[in-house]
């Protein structure tokens, strides 16, 4: 009878070490917690250099986005030819145009932004979001690596350059 009683007794788990670990973990997380989820968008100031290299075979894309309150004008080429004009209310169309351009010029990765002087920062960020990557889940563009190998990618023109001088 005594033996049977001993067998039925459930062994108690020692939770103290695991509780200690959880407390330390929570303390560490609380200390490092930043309740604002922050990220960065990189951009370079334009630098002018004199090129001594020979002229490349293919003309550079020189993608420029002129942003006004109503439209985003997509310009390409050294002469700044208008490629497309898109309403600022329909930025998905801008994304589609840039997908088209990236597929034609997979080696290019920079875009020059020229916003209107009163254009608000959060709207500029929206334009940047539509310029940097493909937003449609099932669409990919062609990208080229250093060894000129092509691969599918979501990255469009991730090197954003602002016109900083007046």
């Amino acid at each position, binding site marked *: 009878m005594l033996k049977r009683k001993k067998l039925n007794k459930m062994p108690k788990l020692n939770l103290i070490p695991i*509780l200690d670990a959880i407390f330390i973990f929570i303390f560490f997380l609380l200390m490092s917690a930043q309740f604002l989820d922050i*990220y960065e968008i990189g951009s370079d100031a334009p630098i002018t250099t004199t090129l001594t290299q020979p002229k490349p075979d293919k003309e550079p894309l020189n993608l420029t986005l002129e942003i006004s309150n109503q439209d985003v004008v997509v310009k390409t080429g050294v002469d700044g030819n208008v490629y497309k004009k898109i309403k600022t209310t329909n930025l998905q169309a801008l994304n589609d145009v840039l997908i088209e351009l990236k597929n034609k010029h997979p080696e290019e990765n920079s875009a020059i932004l020229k916003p209107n002087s*009163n254009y*608000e920062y959060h709207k500029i960020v929206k334009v940047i979001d539509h310029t940097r990557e493909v937003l449609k889940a099932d669409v990919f563009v062609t990208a080229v690596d250093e060894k000129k190998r092509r691969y599918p990618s979501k990255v469009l023109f991730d090197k954003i350059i*602002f016109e900083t001088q007046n």
Partner: protein
Amino acid sequence: MKRTFTRKREKAEPMELDITSLLDILVILLVFLLKSYNATNLKLDLVKSLVIPDSKARDLGAHAIILQVDKDANIWCENKKIGRATDGNKIDPLYDFLKNKREIASTDESKKAKSINLVLHKTLPYKAMQGVMHTSALAGYTDFKFIVQGNY
């Protein structure tokens, strides 16, 4: 003799605490904290009246000098008001401040940091942004990092 024996047994009995509810709270707290964990080493203490815009960007910020521009276009760095960004022209007090910072940081030109974290209010006009960027670039900070809020 018998009485003494009983008392001893009572003392030895450990007190049992019901920690189920405490464990529940800890698990909820742990899940919440893990969800809000951001591995960036950039620590941001926003000035009053500054709201940063939402973005789809997912690049983690890095430690660098932080410039904040509030909704009235006042420029702040290390909780000190430096000047005001009104247009796209060079902002002299900001230029002097950044130049001084850069000189203190290192005497070797190649080792000097080029990155600058720009925390700008969401409705700031481009002309104010332009002034801050232009001045920063003149002071040697040419690698701008715009700090944004992640949206899902």
